[in-house]
């Protein structure tokens, strides 16, 4: 379909679960044609992970799969068979981009090393998204989101609250599959850079995205402080010491409020009606305020606990002090903000029915985000891709199906 930012870009996605598919989704959602290759039978592993409507597992109704695979065409293919490998080569021949997240050794063994693929298709951009990259001593480590998250240092500095002794708790991974998502996202940026290059030079490249690096990159300020200021960190209970932005309990929920920052303190004290305790010398200057923040926070929380979230937010807004409710996803989905931004869209899916999905996190004025098609059923586009584009007959497809190739 013309008119979208990446219309005309042809992508083959030979990847599974989250990291590769998220990269593929980002490209597909902006109009690239993405052909997703899944193994016959079970298909992408995300189909087996929920959430499922009413908790009834169904391979066409996994919320994770449906979200990650909007706007893609789907085919089945067992690339471990000789016929299957041949077909993948043909698909790659016709593509601009290959996104894959398979273990590097397997990719080589199956004959899909970039060197060989670039001979078939010199324009090809191959984006390989793996836990530890294509090189280095951990290249062949078996890994998943938990492992990568911990290998980046992010788990160690992920603070926790409501626990007495943070060092008694293990380092904490982010919710869901943050690590895999970030790797896929970095992959999309790197892929687009390579695509832009290839438009100019006419030749492709192999992009090597390591999830560990993608997450370590998010640690850059810590790493910078370590390199320059020789800082190190212990496990964090609650906020970072000295951080005066914090969460506060209200009568009916919690807010995240930045009242302690120097630029907001005076306004906030005024908004709270200039309480007496604030006159104490402990809270008069910034340095001592930081040092005694626990006490300040306790006093402020006495005030917020007597008010609803809505009241506190309204008060803060009126005083131009940053404050917003701490939302559950339900509250986010039903928020005024989400409605005003059209953050959720109804997507119709043949099996899963009509479900609300979050849309892309940015708006493009000329080439807006669009759902052209929902996530594909397993093998939904076998005929369209194999017969119409690669020239196989229907009968050949029945033979391949019986033989487990598709």
């Amino acid at each position, binding site marked *: 379909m013309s008119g979208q*930012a*990446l219309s005309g870009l042809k992508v083959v996605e030979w990847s599974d679960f989250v990291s590769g598919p998220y990269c593929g989704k*980002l490209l597909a959602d*902006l109009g690239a044609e993405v052909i997703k290759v899944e193994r016959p039978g079970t298909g992408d592993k995300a189909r*087996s*992970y*929920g959430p499922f409507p*009413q*908790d009834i597992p169904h391979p066409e109704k996994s919320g*994770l799969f449906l*979200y990650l695979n909007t706007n893609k065409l789907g085919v089945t293919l067992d690339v471990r068979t000789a016929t299957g490998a041949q077909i993948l080569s043909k698909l790659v021949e016709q593509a601009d981009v290959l996104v894959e997240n398979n273990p590097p050794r397997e990719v080589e063994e199956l004959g899909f090393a970039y060197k060989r693929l670039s001979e078939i298709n010199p324009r090809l951009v191959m984006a390989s998204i793996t836990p530890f990259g294509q*090189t*280095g001593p951990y290249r062949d480590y*078996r890994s998943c989101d*938990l*492992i990568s998250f911990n290998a980046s240092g*992010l788990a160690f*500095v992920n603070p926790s*609250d409501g626990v007495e002794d943070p060092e008694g708790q293990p*380092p*904490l991974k*982010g919710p*869901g599959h*943050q690590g895999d998502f970030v790797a896929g996202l*970095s992959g999309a*940026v*790197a892929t*687009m*850079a390579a*695509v*832009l290059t290839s438009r100019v030079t006419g030749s492709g490249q192999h992009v090597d*995205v*390591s999830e560990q*690096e993608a997450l*370590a*990159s998010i*640690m*850059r*300020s810590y*790493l*910078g402080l370590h390199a*320059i*200021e020789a*800082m*190190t960190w212990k496990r964090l209970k*609650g906020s970072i010491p000295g*951080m005066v*932005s914090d969460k506060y309990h209200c009568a009916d929920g919690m807010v*995240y409020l930045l009242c302690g920052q120097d630029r907001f303190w005076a306004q906030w004290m005024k908004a709270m009606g200039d309480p007496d305790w604030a006159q104490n010398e402990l809270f008069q200057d910034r340095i001592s305020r930081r040092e005694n923040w626990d006490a300040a926070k306790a006093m402020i929380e006495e005030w917020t606990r007597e008010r609803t979230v809505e009241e506190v937010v309204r008060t803060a807004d009126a005083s131009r002090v940053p404050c917003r409710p*701490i*939302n*559950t*996803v339900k509250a*986010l*989905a039903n928020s005024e*903000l989400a409605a005003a931004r059209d953050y959720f869209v109804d997507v119709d899916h043949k099996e899963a029915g009509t*479900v609300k999905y*979050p849309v892309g996190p940015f708006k493009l004025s*000329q*080439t807006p985000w669009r759902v052209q098609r929902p996530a594909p059923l397993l093998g939904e586009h076998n005929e369209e891709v194999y017969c119409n584009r690669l020239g196989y007959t229907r009968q050949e497809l029945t033979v391949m199906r019986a033989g487990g190739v598709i």
Partner: protein
Amino acid sequence: MSTQKLPLEGVRVVDFTAIWAGPHVTQWLAVMGADVIKIESNIRPDAERAAFIRTTTEPTMSAVFAALNYAKKACTLNMTNPKGRDLAREIIKVSDVVAENFGGAVMDRWGLGYPELKRLKSDIILYSGSGFGRTGPYSELPAFAGIVEALGGMCLLNGYLGSEPLPMATRGYADLTSAQHGAYAILAALYHRSKTGEGQHIDLSMTEVVGALLPEAIMDYTMNDRVPRPQGNRDVAMAPHGCYRCQGDDEWVAIAISNDEEWRAFCNAMGNPEWTNEDRFRDGLSRWKNQEELDQLVGEWTGNRTRFEATDILQKAGVMAGPSLKVEDVAHDPHLAERGFFVELDQPGIGVLPMAGLPWKVVDGPRGDYEHSPALGEHNDYVFKELLKMSDEEMARLQEEEAIL
């Protein structure tokens, strides 16, 4: 290798961003070869220059600023001065992308909103990053990562079972993930422009970025009207799946077992202790249901080893395992070192430093641009004399008039 082109060579970015999220967007662009011109002012430098300063850094080059702004150029323009804004317009006329992340419609108020920019240069791409989007009820509010994560649902999902909410890895997770979405959107817009000649306006909301990375929870709500709670280190299916204490000071190893085969390999690696034969651990579903006790028992094994020993033993057995690294460990990780993830920046006034690079690596391809982070106004000459072709006198006059300030 260096004869190969960087992807964004020839692309110029006028960079009004500051602090974290915005600068990381333009950092990606700069490393990939774009000519990024950071617009600051002596009366209003990027506030991050002065953040977290101790004694080892220059007063206008904090460690965090250095980590986020290498490969860029910097000039000083007084945007409160109409002549300063005119100069900005001149720079924009010879640029491709304008990036900003103000808390509110500052660009509009300066007469530099998208319609005006389009008149200056018809194919201009304007990137606007904000906490809540440039439309909607909070379009005038500044963004803070904690706030955005709170609103976006992250805080109430991050944490141990039963814990209180908290933004994740507080220092800027939402900022830096938003930045990558922003960089991606800009590249897509550049791609579109290369086909059609058309620019556009990109309006990114950090709150929406947070949600975009939490679809499991959101879809569970939209499908089942249910609100998920933090799950700590647990997984929907795998058990054991968590972090286990090892020898050493607050040292842990992460282990994940996803099927019977891996479980058997794991048991063998542990020397088949008695407890692994108990009924409650012998099959996947039972292990998942009894994971609290299972975690304790696994911890007994890991407790006798260092995290690196445990990792080595388990990886050799084909089990997913890895150390939980502290910041200092990451800085010295042999794998990252061999891959060249850290880049040596020669930072004036501070010295040669290993800074985190970007996770962008082209095999046998060109190395990104890793010039040091710029001092305030370091490239004024380049911007005003070379790009805008000003004479020395003109520049001096504008400095006097406090347009260049």
